[in-house]
């Protein structure tokens, strides 16, 4: 089960965990990226995520397939939310399951690192003072 997708609604972490579940797996790793209240010293109100959607979906799937091959992880899924996301809400959830913990953890890290480097998604931060700005890659270290 390899599944990647973009969504406009809240991400169901528990649902993704259930989706990758398989009785032969002993380890499931999960990464949840959430919108945080401060970034580079400014009070963030919300973040608007936009994307080049067909390419982003293709790229996410490519990353999942790479992780699957590299670490032998057959149960892996990633979901990225688009649109306006509030503080504390999840923008991205990645789940990887494997019989053993090493590959499950390695695959998880690979996917989040690659996703942040390659997937055409952008953040427009809205600040409490009414200002807004595009987050550039160098600042994107959540």
């Amino acid at each position, binding site marked *: 089960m390899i599944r990647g997708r973009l969504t406009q609604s809240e991400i169901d972490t528990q649902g993704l965990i259930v989706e990758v579940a398989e009785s032969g797996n002993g380890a499931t790793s999960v990464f949840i*990226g959430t919108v945080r209240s401060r970034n580079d010293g400014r009070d963030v109100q919300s973040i608007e*995520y*936009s*994307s*080049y959607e*067909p*390419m*982003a979906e*293709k790229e996410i799937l490519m990353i999942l397939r790479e992780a699957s091959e590299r670490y032998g992880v057959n149960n892996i899924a990633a979901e*990225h939310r688009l649109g306006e996301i509030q503080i504390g809400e999840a*923008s*991205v959830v990645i789940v990887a399951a494997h019989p053993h913990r090493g590959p499950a953890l390695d695959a998880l890290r690979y996917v*989040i690192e690659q*996703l*942040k*480097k*390659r*997937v*055409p*998604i*952008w*953040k*427009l931060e809205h600040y409490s003072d009414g200002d807004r700005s*595009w*987050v*550039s*890659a*160098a*600042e*994107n270290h*959540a």
Partner: protein
Amino acid sequence: MTVTVRFFASYAEVLGCQSFVLGLANGATVQDVVSHVAALPGAAGVPPAPLIAVNHSYANLSHLLADGDEVAIIPPVAGG
């Protein structure tokens, strides 16, 4: 031939444009599109060698274009 050029996020904002159709001579490359974009009003907000995708895959400046290609000028990505 013609290609569709697409802009996103900060680039779409500074150029005031999300998409346009560009006529090119046969044998044109991604570099020709980038040069055209560099002459647009607001192009100061786009770096001289931006990330490019052709038909949803990352491509080099020397990539040869074909009629109907979609050329996307990709701002620094910030997903996650």
